[in-house]
């Protein structure tokens, strides 16, 4: 990438919180996340030139739109700040970050605030499931369907099964690893929940099927969360580094990005990829674009991955799409322990969407925040030793919008 993009860090709210129970308006999430990010990074509010919000469906969950305007409320210095909101279902946060990066590379701004947010615990699970259905082609895939997304991602598993064979025990292992990693993450939603591989393998009254081959243990969580990060040009990063008394080269960068959109309907995706080695070729392309832009040959140049495990099947898909195995052989990486916290390329050290939580429009930013923690050696209990470069993969819809970032340092 021409103009380097520096990542200055940020702040994430505790994903176990229920803001409705606290009787909070979504603006409180903005305030806490931005105040936390300013405090954590030492970025001066006067230096922030633009703000981008990633959010999926605040209009539905909280009856509130025009979210960019809430950024202006978070600090007196933000009066008049140009802001906007970006939506691409569960990939909204990454799209907000891409917009901020594009503006920096265009030379418009030097320091941007990016906030991903979703407040979801305002409605019961059936109504929330219906809202999430608008991330699919609602009228054709979700209307009148109870919990459409587990069913769509169940079909992703079925497609793997049909093309290559798929054992549910491998999905159970994915779930178990994510929950185990989340126990080491003090901001993870499920950090105090019980999980075991036996439970994940069991189908019973506590682990019932919610759609196709997807059970409760295969699913990510309904989560309230806000995550704010700052990205900067080299010019601002140099000034910031000088003020902090560190070398600008010690600040991590967003080394590469990839972004593709597939047809909205799941059937159309499958039909399009029927002769392709990859089930979701556009997702694969987002990943390889990110590698190429970062100057990385393949996944073995990456130290960890934060991927979009909205369901265990989407992580199963990510394993071969990242190139950890040949297409269809994701099970090998699971069996060989490659994706475990102490494996060759750990996936979701944070616990991912299953363990850490999935505040839909916030997830893309949360993944990048976790990548920042890993490469700056500040991830605490879920630190991947010596991580220098971390990849993210954020997916909106049933594999529709895919965005991947590479965060870290040049070798």
């Amino acid at each position, binding site marked *: 990438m021409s103009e380097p993009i520096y990542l200055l860090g940020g702040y994430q709210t505790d994903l176990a919180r229920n803001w409705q129970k606290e*009787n*909070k308006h979504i*603006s*409180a999430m903005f305030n806490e996340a931005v105040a936390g990010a300013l405090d954590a990074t030492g970025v001066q509010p006067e230096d922030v030139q633009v703000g981008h919000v990633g959010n999926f469906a605040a209009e539905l969950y909280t009856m509130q739109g025009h979210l960019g305007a809430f950024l202006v409320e978070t600090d007196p210095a933000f009066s008049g700040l140009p802001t906007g909101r970006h939506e691409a279902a569960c990939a909204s946060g990454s799209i907000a970050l891409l917009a901020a990066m594009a503006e920096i590379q265009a030379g418009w701004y030097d320091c941007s605030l990016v906030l991903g947010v979703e407040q979801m615990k305002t409605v019961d699970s059936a109504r929330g499931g219906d809202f999430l259905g608008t991330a699919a082609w609602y009228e054709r895939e979700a209307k009148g369907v109870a919990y459409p997304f587990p069913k769509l991602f169940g079909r992703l598993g079925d497609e793997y099964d049909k093309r290559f064979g798929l054992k549910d025990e491998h999905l159970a292992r994915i779930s178990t690893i994510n929950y185990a990693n989340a126990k080491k993450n003090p901001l993870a939603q499920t950090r105090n929940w*019980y999980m*075991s591989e036996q439970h994940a393998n069991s189908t*019973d*009254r506590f682990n019932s099927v919610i759609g196709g081959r997807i059970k409760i243990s295969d699913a990510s969580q309904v989560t309230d969360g806000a995550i704010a990060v700052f990205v900067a040009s080299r010019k601002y990063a140099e000034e910031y580094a000088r003020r902090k008394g560190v070398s600008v080269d010690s600040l991590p960068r967003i080394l590469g990005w990839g972004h593709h959109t597939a047809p909205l309907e799941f059937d159309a995706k499958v039909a399009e990829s029927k002769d392709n080695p990859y089930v979701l070729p556009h997702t694969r392309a987002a990943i390889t674009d990110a590698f190429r832009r970062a100057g990385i040959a393949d996944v073995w140049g990456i130290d960890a991955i934060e991927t979009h495990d909205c369901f265990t099947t989407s992580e199963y898909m990510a394993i071969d799409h990242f190139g950890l195995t040949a297409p269809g052989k994701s099970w090998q990486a699971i069996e060989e322990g490659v994706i475990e916290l102490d494996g060759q390329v750990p996936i979701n050290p944070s616990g991912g969407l299953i363990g850490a939580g999935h505040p839909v429009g916030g997830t893309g930013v949360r993944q990048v925040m976790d990548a920042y923690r890993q490469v700056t050696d500040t991830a605490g209990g879920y630190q991947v030793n010596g991580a220098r470069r971390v990849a993210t993969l954020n997916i909106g819809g049933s594999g529709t919008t895919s965005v991947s970032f590479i965060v870290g340092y040049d070798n």
Partner: protein
Amino acid sequence: MATDTSPAIALQKVVIIGANGAMGAGAATMFAGGGCDVTLVARDLGKVEGAVAQVQSIAKSERIADGLVQMTYSEGYAKLLEDADLIFEAVAEDFPLKREILAEIDRSRPQGSLVATVSSGLSIRGLAEGLSDDFRRNFAGIHLFNPPHMMTGTELIPHPEMPAERVQALSTLMTERFGRSMITCADMPAFAGNRIGFKVLNEVAQLAEQHGVQLMDTLVGPYTGRAMPPLATIDLVGWDVHQAIVDNVYANVKDEAIEAFKLPEYMEKQIRHGHLGDKTPLLGGFFRRVTHDGRAPEGKRSWTEVLDPGTGTYKETEKITVPFVEEIRDLHRRGRYQQGVARFMEVEGAQADIARRVILGYISYGLNRVGPGEVVQDYAEVDRIMSAGFNWAPPSALVDLIGLDQSIAALERYNLPVPALLTAAKKGEVMTPLFNLPFVSPGRYFAG
């Protein structure tokens, strides 16, 4: 088997004595979730099966039961405790009963095994009196808050003879393997959390006699930094439990605010008549839900009644609106906690004075429980237990929001002892802001 000199504790086999209570089942879930082999012990098999069902429902997992060993006392303690690394006694809060069971445990336990008792305030030294040296060196109180799987706050009250490094190892183990928010307390009545928390609750109950139940729950409501209003909290805890805690402190402690622990007479009277709060739903406590058809007012199937402390009678609740409370709630609702607390400190009037005195009293009393001769040695432990055990805004976070100078001035204005911590912070001897618990955002406690 761990020894006194080994810094890390290897915990494999845990035996829960009295597994069918809320604390026993909660602890069993916690230990099984952390990968221990757990044995559940209760009086008869029916009770043990009940414990297994409780564990499954807490963990939301049928499979968690696969690894649980089910036993009754009839097996004999020698067999129950064979190879145990930790014996976790969770029978009822009854001193003679606990003494009897701990003596049995002492006779049969493996040397070097840890023994913990779940208690919300009984003397740990007293419970271990006359038991073996090895027992006393390995004995601690572990106070869990209810329900343990939701509230991670945990008090560790080591027997004074437990070696310091073993105390540290146990605390680390509970934190790292079982996700507990640990504090270490001295063996003093009610330990730390309940001492500080029930002082506030009982003070509000005392004030309710003059100002009414609903008004007090509004003035010291969730907007002051708590998940639940104080008197509703006493109903949830149970009036009998509340009485046991405040009576124990009132009888055995001398401190600057001891009169706040005197149980109000109206409460004593209600308890005598069987009003124990939510656990006696028909009689109620401060509140009760009424669903009898015959007594329902026009068009209502159920309604809530509130106690009149003066007469001991109940009447239907009414909507109480206190303008400054609404104003502050609106600020908190938008995440403007600093402004909300600032407003709380400046608003004029008798009602605001009542609320401020309670909150400043909480700050003063909480932070004065720190230091030599007190129940904890670091103010962060008070913060941790009030947040993770009570879901209340930690005292030092309140000081930060009010401002250090303003806090000291306000405490002086209300004739409340200024904690040494604040004086030291003012001199620059302690880092500010004071609140320093990682990953805890105090804003969460200030409800909108």
